[in-house]
């Protein structure tokens, strides 16, 4: 295989309402990226996006997973959950809008900054979801 075709794939399960484990996947992703010598600014952006993805899965979904693929020219982070979907994507992408529970808000989550942070930190951002369906967010970071 040519050097440019090699990829590293990392996959982490994220459980519904597992607040105590939230951050583990993004910490591990950050460690791996640092170990292979990715630029610190890119690592920080990926770490923020991965963390927000984890928190979203914990707070809003029935559980899911975060997959990271590292190739020679980009890092792709995919957050894919089992539902129950986002009713209004436009609202969900608005800074400050949140449907988080009171319990989550008391813990300082639910600022309505998660998806905007993910879009802001990534070079390419796409989200697919609808009410009752799975949500899939794909973020690409150029190296």
């Amino acid at each position, binding site marked *: 295989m040519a050097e440019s075709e090699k990829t590293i794939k990392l996959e982490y399960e994220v459980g519904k309402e597992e607040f105590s484990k939230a*951050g*583990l996947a993004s910490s591990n992703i950050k460690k791996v990226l640092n170990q292979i010598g990715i630029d610190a600014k890119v690592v*920080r952006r990926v770490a*923020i996006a991965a963390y927000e993805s984890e928190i979203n899965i914990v707070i809003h979904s029935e559980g899911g997973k975060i997959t990271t693929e590292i190739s020679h020219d980009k890092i792709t982070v995919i957050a894919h959950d089992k539902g129950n979907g986002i009713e209004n994507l436009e609202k969900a992408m608005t800074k400050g809008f949140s449907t988080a529970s009171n319990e989550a808000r008391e813990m300082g989550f639910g600022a309505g900054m998660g998806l905007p942070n993910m879009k802001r930190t990534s070079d390419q951002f796409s989200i697919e979801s609808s009410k009752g369906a799975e949500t899939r967010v794909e973020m690409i970071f150029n190296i």
Partner: protein
Amino acid sequence: MIINEIIEELKLNQLSGEKNSMKTVDGVYICDLLSWVMANGSKGDIWITVQTHLNIIAVASLLEMPMIIVPESIEVEEETLAKADEENIIVCTSELDSFTLACKLNEMGM
């Protein structure tokens, strides 16, 4: 500014991380909404927050903020401190409120 000098000057109660830390910090960020901190906190900041659960360590670690100050003597969960030791994040509590802490840090030259 050196963390150990801040701990001594403000008479902070250090609960985790290395003692007599010579690490430096160069800013302060005050906020209790984690995603807001993720968006606006900076590497090398002291983070002042009333949140004390485990996730504050993940945020500080990901953003490379070496020190968290919890104001008004709020008790910090044991599991938070254990994780802070693991990640070498210095968690301190203070009797002072966030505003007074910020004023004192400013007086010290932050």
